[in-house]
């Protein structure tokens, strides 16, 4: 009997290659589990059972014949539903794309397919990745596997919940302001936002193009390094992708933290931080110091301006990116329109949900005549100050450590009616996207109520290797995956 809850990709890979288990067997039992528990969790929007079983069989056959197979041979993987997989629906959690079938593969999907991964389904998300709770999806809310009355975080809540509940082994998410890291923290899994430009965005449905990045959600840090190694690399089809060597992340994991200079930004341990989260993170930092890390206080003085800067820039970019949903080329079209303009307006008003419309309104306002300088330009200038804060900090430190979120998972419905309150919950994850640096959330403890607490490690541009190395050390101290389920 395979323990799907704990099954990691690196263990499964060994098992498959040694012939102790087959990809088919694992994929099949995953679908059994999904059928049993996904009614409660709602992690998936669509399942690709037939294709997945066929692929698993093919990989098994090739292994039997002794043929060469890819780095993720036979490993099941779930994909956030804003990443295009050819011939399958990509809905972005929206009515407007309810029936959109992608005619091509995203670059990350091409890479996963050539690594022989088995794509098992598309996961639920906040509509167009706009949200921090996976409550704004047209396809219903995803529930936190640790407590079904709570949110899994967002916007990659489906991917995080699927990994945490043993409904997949690996998952992809996207992160514009914390959408991989915050759900990873709420669901007790590992989630990495790579450096802007480390992973191609080709085939990721755009929300805020200067901030979006695809990344892994996994059960442990080793899987995170394994998956990042497959996703990362230059892509001609994404002009913002960095043309740099991709290091062997797995080989560098176990270097330890001795001599690593670790900064603790004081602005991240201020008012609003749950005392339990604070003590859990600080306890871990002390343990890293005991292992030889050099710990000192750091300062990122413009942290308090990050949310305002982010929500101006992200909504402005979103208002432009989402102009393409007009009922002409793809997606939903409202039928009752008398003329073209009516058709655009009805299609968008019926096709988009409340939060998406609110953000389009905010972004259009920030870009409109008379407000551009006061809002959009100002936010871009503050972005420079935030970026410079990090540049200065990384002159002294190799990594920075913070909580991922000020609280553990909150209750479903708790913040949905108060958009500003929801925006403020992203306080610790947003600056990372503004600066374009990499950051990972790794489980560091369990609250008294039995909910996971996440610790965030931030690094220099393109230095995912050091970030993962520290994350690995945290995981060793904590003792493997957090086991509260």
């Amino acid at each position: 009997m395979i323990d799907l809850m704990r099954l990691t990709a690196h263990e499964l890979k060994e098992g498959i290659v040694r012939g102790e288990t087959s990809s088919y067997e694992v994929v099949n039992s995953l679908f059994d589990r999904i059928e049993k528990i996904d009614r409660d969790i709602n992690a998936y929007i669509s399942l690709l059972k037939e294709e997945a079983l066929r692929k698993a069989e093919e990989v098994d056959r090739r292994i039997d014949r002794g043929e060469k197979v890819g780095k993720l041979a036979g490993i099941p993987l779930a994909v956030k539903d804003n990443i295009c997989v050819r011939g399958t629906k990509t809905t972005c959690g929206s009515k407007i794309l309810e029936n959109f079938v992608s005619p091509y593969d995203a670059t990350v999907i091409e890479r996963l397919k050539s690594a022989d991964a088995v794509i098992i389904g598309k996961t639920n998300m906040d509509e167009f990745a706009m949200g921090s709770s996976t409550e704004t999806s047209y396809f219903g809310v995803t529930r936190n596997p640790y407590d079904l009355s709570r949110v899994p975080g967002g916007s990659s809540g489906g991917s995080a919940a699927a990994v945490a509940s043993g409904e997949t082994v690996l998952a992809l998410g996207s992160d514009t302001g914390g959408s991989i890291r915050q759900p990873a923290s709420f669901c007790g899994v590992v989630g990495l936002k790579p450096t802007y430009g480390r992973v191609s965005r080709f085939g990721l449905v755009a929300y805020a193009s200067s901030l979006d990045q695809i990344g892994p959600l996994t059960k442990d840090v080793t899987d995170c390094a394994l998956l990042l190694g497959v996703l990362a690399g230059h892509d001609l089809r994404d002009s913002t992708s960095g043309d740099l060597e991709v290091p062997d992340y797995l080989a560098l994991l176990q270097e330890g933290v001795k001599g690593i200079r670790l900064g603790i930004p004081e602005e991240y341990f201020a008012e609003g931080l749950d005392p339990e989260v604070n003590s859990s993170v600080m306890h871990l930092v002390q343990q890293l110091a005991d292992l030889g890390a050099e710990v000192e206080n750091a300062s990122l003085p413009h942290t308090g301006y990050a949310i305002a800067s982010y929500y101006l820039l992200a909504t402005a970019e979103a208002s432009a990116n989402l102009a393409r949903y007009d009922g002409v080329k793809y997606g939903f079209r409202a039928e009752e329109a008398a003329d073209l303009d009516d058709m655009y307006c009805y299609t968008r008003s019926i096709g988009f949900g409340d939060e998406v419309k609110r953000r389009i309104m905010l972004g259009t306002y920030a870009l409109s005549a008379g407000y551009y300088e006061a809002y959009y330009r100002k936010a871009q200038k503050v972005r420079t100050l935030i970026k410079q804060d990090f540049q200065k900090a990384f002159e002294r430190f190799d990594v920075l450590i913070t909580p991922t979120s000020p609280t553990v998972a909150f209750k479903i419905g708790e913040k949905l009616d108060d958009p500003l309150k929801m925006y403020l919950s992203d306080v610790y994850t947003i600056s990372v996207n503004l600066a374009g640096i990499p950051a990972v959330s790794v489980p560091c403890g369990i609250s008294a109520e039995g909910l996971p607490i996440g610790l965030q490690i931030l690094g220099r541009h393109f230095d995912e290797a050091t970030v993962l190395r520290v994350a690995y050390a945290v995981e060793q101290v904590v003792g493997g995956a957090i086991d509260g389920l």
Partner: protein
Amino acid sequence: MPVTLKDVENIAMLAKLRFTQEEKERLISQLSRILSYFEKLNELDTTDVEPTSHVLPIKNVFRDDVVTGSLPRDQILANAPDQWMGYFKVPKVIE
């Protein structure tokens, strides 16, 4: 700065969105609250700060000028809500 009904209607027109009276009222209060939070940025003097539109020092990315494949037309049209003779079909534009 409080958002007015006129602002909401003007922005909705630019964004090709329509709202009911009730939705407009709610947007006035929500947007006012969010925008007044954004005013926080004015605490900072940014006179001599360059704006950031992109975080990496990547400029003018070109590829070789060679013809590559494109997506097949029938596959693209398959997603269209309405089509006719290989074209996207829309409601009548010219009277």
